């Protein structure tokens, strides 16, 4: 990504974002302000993808920054590290409260783990924010040598398959009745091999205003999942 957007955890993060109210007062039409949780992970890539779909992306590391955004992206990264930093810097409860109040949140990979109500394969004592009625298995696809790229159909994303990258990725083992499945691993791979235990596993899902993908659209340059999330945030601001 070449776009010089808000750097992860940069000094710009301390400047509160103008919220919807400020924009309304200014009379300027603008996309939603979406925070990227900037404790650890590929913050810059998510910020660039959000900017590419017309949203204003800001880094969120503090409660005050969380209060100034219309939606939040929990990026890819190390879920155990992000969990610890959320608790140490007391962002976990404010985020849970925001989710409960209906703030739209999109999580990719580690972000999917953090949005899950239940996880398998977590580190000792690992917690999540929760909100999605799913059981997510961490590192389900294996180690880094098993990480892969593939084209995948995602419901709600028009225009053909999405280019996806799965990096030490999780999958959804079980989903409750309120969860809308957006993508599954097909039974056979593009080159005709059996997908084995991964066949049919859920890798993109939505529940209310929560969106989660096991893959990273933010590093493949395909911004349509971010466009889907930006629309979700836009709709939530109107309602």
């Amino acid at each position, binding site marked *: 990504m070449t776009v*010089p957007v808000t750097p992860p955890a940069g000094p710009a993060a301390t400047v509160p974002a103008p919220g919807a109210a400020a924009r309304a007062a200014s009379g300027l039409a603008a996309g939603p302000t979406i925070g990227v949780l900037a404790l650890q992970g*590929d*913050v810059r890539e998510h910020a660039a993808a959000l900017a590419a779909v017309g949203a204003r992306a800001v880094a969120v590391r503090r409660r005050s920054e969380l209060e100034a955004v219309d939606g939040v992206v929990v990026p*890819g990264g*190390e879920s155990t590290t992000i969990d610890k930093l959320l608790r140490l810097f007391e962002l976990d409860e404010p985020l849970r409260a925001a989710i409960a109040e209906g703030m739209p949140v999109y999580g990719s990979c580690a972000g999917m783990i953090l949005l899950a109500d239940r996880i398998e394969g977590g580190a000792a004592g690992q917690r999540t924010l929760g909100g999605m009625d799913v059981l997510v298995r961490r590192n389900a696809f294996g180690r880094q040598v098993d990480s892969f790229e593939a084209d995948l159909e995602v419901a709600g994303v028009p225009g053909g398959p999405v280019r996806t990258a799965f990096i030490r990725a999780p999958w959804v083992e079980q989903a409750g009745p309120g969860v809308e499945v957006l993508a599954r691993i097909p039974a056979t791979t593009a080159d005709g091999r059996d997908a084995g235990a991964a066949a049919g596993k859920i890798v993109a899902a939505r529940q209310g205003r929560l969106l989660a993908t096991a893959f990273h659209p933010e590093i493949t340059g395909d911004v349509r999942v971010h466009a889907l999330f930006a629309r979700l945030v836009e709709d939530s601001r109107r309602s």
Partner: protein
Amino acid sequence: MSESSTRPGAGEAGLGEVGTARVKRGMAEMLKGGVIMDVVTPEQAKIAEDAGAVAVMALERVPADIRAQGGVARMSDPDMIEGIIDAVSIPVMAKARIGHFVEAQVLQSLGVDYVDESEVLTPADYANHIDKWAFTVPFVCGATNLGEALRRITEGAAMIRSKGEAGTGDVSNATTHMRQIRQEIRRLTSLPTDELFVAAKELQAPYELVAEVARTGKLPVVLFTAGGIATPADAAMMMQLGAEGVFVGSGIFKSGDPAARAKAIVQATTFHDDPDVIAKVSRGLGEAMVGINVEAEPAPVRLAERGW
């Protein structure tokens, strides 16, 4: 893939295209803003994971001990690496000697998530580095300047760490090399196109890569820092100088209270621009590693000068 095959060999279970540049570089993107900690035992690996490390680096001896004990430093025992892989759920990296492609093959077959072709170990080849494109597992390599970084990327490195002087607890070399790399990148961005050809010649790097750095103002892969980082303030300074994450070697497990220091360095890395947080986490950490002044080390034992 069944439960028992969560650790298959090199990409055999891949469900799409494995080992692509995007997947290799992408793995490093996921480590950004994090701390990767050197560990020599499964117990240390667990302490690192509990402290919030984004990954651990398995090696035979930490650099301070390699320095003190001398002798040839090699890849760790596979039993030890497997023990560490089994002990933690976070990514596990391991070091291979410069040019030792068979050590790298072994590490890939063990299922490590990243191979560090490292000057901290004794080089196995004084002319050639490993052809890293030939592997599914991604590689991180050290660099003291932009030309060295771009040569490693040309060979297939998917992540770069600036070299410091490992095992000293003296951050001065890490500072020099990070400043050097960043300064050379800034210089490239200011050059007119016709001068980029000569710049490529001087950097001893391919023109296409030099032109890409000039256009984007950054390396095409993630840039971490390493070598001599011993305190939360050291880590924060390197982040402010432009590192995207931090490797800490001897600085944690050669200190008085490794668990507390590890956790503090993790927090200081995230809030590297907030002195209040760095002050808070720097309190009561016990003794830092004693350290060796780099200037007091004779040139033949300076590790950063290995690699070319």
